[in-house]
């Protein structure tokens, strides 16, 4: 229209500018640097009197130019401490064998039995490759592998994102699959059979190793409402098949008097060998002048009877100077139990499936946290996050509260 775009004005402009500046100008040498982004973090998670996790994470992401990226992420977890084995507290001391069957431990009267042989190291490696297929379509291909003493997992994923409406709308669809191998210490017991109460007594073994397969589908839409507001909506559908039981978890079996039955007072848990689950997720991001608020809600449901609601709220409060910020965080999670969740079982009334894992019970989790972020120079960022979490029973299952402290340091830079 006005300026004919096929016409170069640059030579004329260079000459005129050179006259104005009396010859300061010189040859131009500028190019885009394509750096590595390096993210590192260290997480400390400690439950009161229970599990402690130390988790270092390192990730690199490289911009290959033309909107193509590759990324690799490495995570180590070191877990130690005690975890509830599923048995209920009683008026007298209780003795249990450890999963290996080689030793026993005793829980004092009135206390929730915790198996303190819980100790493991996990390493996880994942990679992804993001590449545009055309101007409005991109794909992300990912793979991951993790391994620990009694568990390993390998997975693949592929996502497609399609930009519409001048990039104000993005439709996403994805598929992921994983194959997990479960190989418990002391092998895999037959579900609902007796737990040995003395060391050296053999339990009924189902196998040395079991596996499960998970397939997941994702559909999503992301909409820019205005330049400061973003809405995201996702649906995920998943199907799990195989050994979904926790080979270490047990249940207490009570007699008609409400006491542990004399013979075989504990049995191994057993869960169905398939699960279908669905979740919807809605997230809104809004930026005020400098502050950013992010709110999300998730509804989850599966054919085990579990349903849950999760509310998450972050508020990023920019501190004076704009180089650092504070971000309070609130999360609330509430769950309805699985149909086969039982705090304990009744003698002569053993169902087909049963678990006393409190994570399948009626429960809620409340998390409060605060993060401090500091931008160091243009390409370095440091953060520290402290959160406290409380899990508690809802309804009539009287399992005790679990509280935890989470502390994370992270440092990111461009290299």
């Amino acid at each position, binding site marked *: 229209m006005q300026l004919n775009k096929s016409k170069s004005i640059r030579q004329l402009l260079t000459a005129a500018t050179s006259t104005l500046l009396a010859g300061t100008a*010189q040859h131009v*040498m*500028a190019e885009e640097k394509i750096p590595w982004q390096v993210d590192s973090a260290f997480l400390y998670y400690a439950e009161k009197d229970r599990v402690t996790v130390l988790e270092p994470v390192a990730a690199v992401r490289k911009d290959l130019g033309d909107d193509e990226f590759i990324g690799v992420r490495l995570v180590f977890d070191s877990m130690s401490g005690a975890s509830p084995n599923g048995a209920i507290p009683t008026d007298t001391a209780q003795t249990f064998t450890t999963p290996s069957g080689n030793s026993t431990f005793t829980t004092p009267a009135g206390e929730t039995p915790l198996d303190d042989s819980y100790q493991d190291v996990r390493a996880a490696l994942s990679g992804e490759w993001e590449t545009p297929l055309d101007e409005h379509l991109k794909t992300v291909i990912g793979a991951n592998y993790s391994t620990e003493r009694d568990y390993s997992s390998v997975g693949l994923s592929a996502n497609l994102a399609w930009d519409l409406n001048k990039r104000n709308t993005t439709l996403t669809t994805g598929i992921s699959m994983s194959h997990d191998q479960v190989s418990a210490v002391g092998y895999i017991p037959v579900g609902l059979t007796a737990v040995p109460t003395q060391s050296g007594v053999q339990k009924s073994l189902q196998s040395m190793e079991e596996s499960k397969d998970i397939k997941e589908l994702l559909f999503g839409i992301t909409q820019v409402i205005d330049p400061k507001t973003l809405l995201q909506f996702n649906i995920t559908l998943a199907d799990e098949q195989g050994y979904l039981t926790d080979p270490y978890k047990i249940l207490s079996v009570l007699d008609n008097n409400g006491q542990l039955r004399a013979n075989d007072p504990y049995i191994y848990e057993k869960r169905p060998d398939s699960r279908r689950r669905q979740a919807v997720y809605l997230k809104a991001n809004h930026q005020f002048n400098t502050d950013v608020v992010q709110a999300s809600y998730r509804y989850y449901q599966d054919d085990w009877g579990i349903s849950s609601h999760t509310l998450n709220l972050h508020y990023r409060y920019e501190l004076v100077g704009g180089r650092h910020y504070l971000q309070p965080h609130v999360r609330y999670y509430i769950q309805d139990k699985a149909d086969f969740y039982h705090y304990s079982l009744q003698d002569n009334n053993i169902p087909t499936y049963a678990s006393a894992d409190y994570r399948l019970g009626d429960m809620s989790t409340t998390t409060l946290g605060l993060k401090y972020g500091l931008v160091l120079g243009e390409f370095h960022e440091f953060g520290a996050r402290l959160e406290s979490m409380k899990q508690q029973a809802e309804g009539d299952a009287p399992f005790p509260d679990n509280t935890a402290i989470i502390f994370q340091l992270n440092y990111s830079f461009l290299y």
Partner: protein
Amino acid sequence: MPPAAQALQVEQHDDYFCCRFQAMASPCEILIETADRQLAGQLGQLARDEAVRIEHKFSRYRDDNIVHQINHSHGTMVEVDDETADLLDYAGFCYELSEGLFDISSGVLGQAWRFDGHTAVPDSASIKQLLCYIGWDKVNWSRPWLALNDGMQIDLGGIGKEYAVDRVAGLVQQQTDCSVLINFGGDLYSSRARQTGKGWHIGIEQPEYTQSNKPMLANKLLEISSGGLATSGDARRHIIKDGQRYGHILNPLTGWPVVGAPCSVSVAAASCTEAGILATLAMLQGEQAEAFLDTQQVPYWVVR
């Protein structure tokens, strides 16, 4: 009134000094690859003095300078000094070259458009009225004499900061052979490659709503060894009305914001001033910004 002293901070880094000050409504810095604190301090002072001089001389927000005199001349002739005349010649040349898209008399449009995010789109009648006071072709410029029609104004804000960067570069290069980066609010100039053979690293900010997930890669990283780099555009200044986003780049020929303009355009060129003009002209091309820059065969980075 003597110019108020602007605080100058001098910081030592690994292999360079950084001098910071505030001028032309922007954070300004000059990086000098030297271990000599005294030299760094001198160059910092030189840069600050020149930036403050140019701001005082050409800011349209002051009432004691040549621009104020011109804008309040009510149609009478004003005689200008050589430096002002050079800038007016240059602005006139850019007006011709861009067929009216670059116009230092378009500042009066600011009376109708306020880009503070509020939904206030002016009516076309008031814009039409303002267009009578816009157009370098309506100006009587015969060096060193300038006469504006009553009601017209000039604003050198569109080239002032870039011009200051290049002027400082010229002065600094008379004093030292060290590699120096001058950065006035994102408009910059590097005198030469650093001793490592590499350039200085510069980040280009991306629109903020995309930053929530990848805060750092969202900033493009540029390496500049020599020459100028200027950025036009600001993702934060806009109006939204009826779902249409109006950016803050106004077309002086229509009085309306350019449709389809990128969030920002960065251009590298031999000087910062030239880079700034090319970046501004590219913004004014709207959807065609990239095509225009391809034709000019300059390194550029467009954020949409």
